[in-house]
């Protein structure tokens, strides 16, 4: 029921956006890897007020069987929004929008995965949107590719994604909710950073060819920045995990001399 009010302007006279960002500035983005214990791999993303959790299970046996692919694993992406993630309560049953987004996310991720390593199996990616504030499909791709890496699924690259668009005649990166709703257009895109290949591209609104090309170039730059954030998040998770291991008593230290007393104690047990 949170009231939605159309802002008077999307770009202020000073050239700033409703939330005070410059046109080429991303929202503060926080990525975390390994947030769910039950899942084989998981990650969360907070991008502005958007909050999404992705969990990966597999490769595992595929049910129902008739979906089986004989030469590779089936990548099944399930994008769902919590009922309370949007201003009005979303109906709990999966919507057509959610199904389409699940499909485009799967298409965005599939090119980087070595699915042929796991014939007949399924890799399940479950995406739960806890709070939606624009750019959820792109944020979901950012989190899902980290979750896939966390699950140890062999992959060529991470996949960063961002929505670019236009409001009040200015090209913008990482559209927020108001810019998405009241702006002139929206172009969500995902890339494979090493090759520059585009794996997700959608557009609505109206652009000239020049605008579109420029917007996409801005998008590619933002994706490269996001790619760095993704790599950092992945390193953070694994470096931290090995730190935790060091704290465990049953882990032996390299420095044998100083640790001799403790080693003896452990043998006594």
């Amino acid at each position: 029921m949170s009231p939605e009010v159309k802002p008077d302007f999307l770009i202020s006279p000073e050239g700033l956006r409703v939330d005070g960002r410059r046109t080429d500035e991303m929202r503060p983005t926080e990525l975390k890897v390994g947030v769910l214990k039950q899942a084989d791999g998981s990650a969360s993303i907070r991008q502005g007020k958007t909050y999404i959790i992705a969990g990966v299970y597999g490769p595992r046996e595929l049910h129902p069987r008739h979906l089986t692919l004989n030469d590779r694993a089936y990548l099944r992406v399930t994008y769902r929004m919590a009922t309370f993630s949007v201003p009005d309560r979303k109906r709990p049953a999966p919507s057509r929008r959610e199904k389409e987004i699940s499909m485009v996310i799967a298409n965005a991720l599939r090119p980087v995965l070595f699915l042929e390593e796991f014939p007949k199996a399924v890799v399940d990616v479950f995406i739960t949107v806890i709070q939606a504030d624009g750019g959820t499909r792109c944020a979901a791709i950012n989190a899902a590719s980290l979750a896939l890496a966390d699950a140890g699924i062999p992959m060529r690259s991470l996949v960063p994604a961002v929505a670019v668009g236009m409001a009040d005649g200015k090209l913008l990166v990482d559209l927020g909710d108001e810019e998405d709703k009241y702006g002139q257009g929206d172009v969500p895109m995902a890339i494979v950073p090493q090759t520059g290949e585009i794996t997700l591209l959608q557009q609505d609104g109206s652009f000239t060819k020049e605008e579109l090309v420029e917007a996409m170039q801005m998008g590619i730059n933002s994706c490269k920045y996001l790619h760095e954030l993704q790599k950092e998040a992945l390193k953070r998770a694994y470096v931290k995990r090995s730190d935790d291991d060091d704290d465990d008593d049953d882990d032996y230290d390299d420095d044998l001399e100083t640790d001799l007393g403790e080693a003896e104690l452990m043998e006594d047990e």
Partner: protein
Amino acid sequence: MGDYSSHTISHIDHDFIADLLRKGERMDGRGFSEYRDLEIEVNVVHAKAEGSALVKLGDTSVVAGVKVLVGEPYPDSPDEGVTMVTAEMSPIASPLFELGPPKEDAIELARVVDRGVRESETVDAKKLCIEEGKKVYMVFADVYPLEYDGNLIDASSIAVNAALLTTKYPEMKLEDKKLVETGEILSLPINNVAIEHTVSKIDENIIIDPILKEEFVQDCRLTMAVDRENNFTAMQKGGGAGPISMELVERAMDMALESAESIRNAIDEAVKSVE
């Protein structure tokens, strides 16, 4: 983690856990009437939901959110608002949960948590009325499990209550048949708070807050909702067809009463931050 994709439970698992209990021990070293560590974070969906909470009970975690909408009352209660709790076993939470329409266990979870809230009359339905027969507030509390390591019911019950207690919504009124905001921000009219406590029976022993492995080998479970006055407001035997004796039911009730206060305090502490 582990692969529980087959529901087959080995006798070895059952005997191991049952033997441990006979010696007075649990797999994770807890006492029989001891809950796992409880963490409650409220207002995790501050921008879109009217109330929300993320609850971690050991390695089980759920997120609950509350939406307050305006709708028409049911014809048989024209001056009462509506409160509804739903839960979904989203497959992100466990390799055991599958995609597809909710199955029996998911429906049971939603109904048991819903009953805990409704039977204790947590939200005063009469105070949710805007104009009799025309407009009332409808309160939807929805639960999404994120990690399932046993005892989703208690975690969900704690999350729903914490979310309801922190719910803030704009007051509405009817003016010339149009809904307008008065500018006031309201909290939900909370009458009572009842939290559910689940006890699992394994052979002749009962334990509170079972982890997944204990749930697997249980004969049955008993869920009890205990309110602020230590009254029982709802109960459900489930999680298996095993029978339970009157004596064990009494012990289970004592166990629930023993934990009720500390869990309530943890919730009160967590919701204090939102005023």
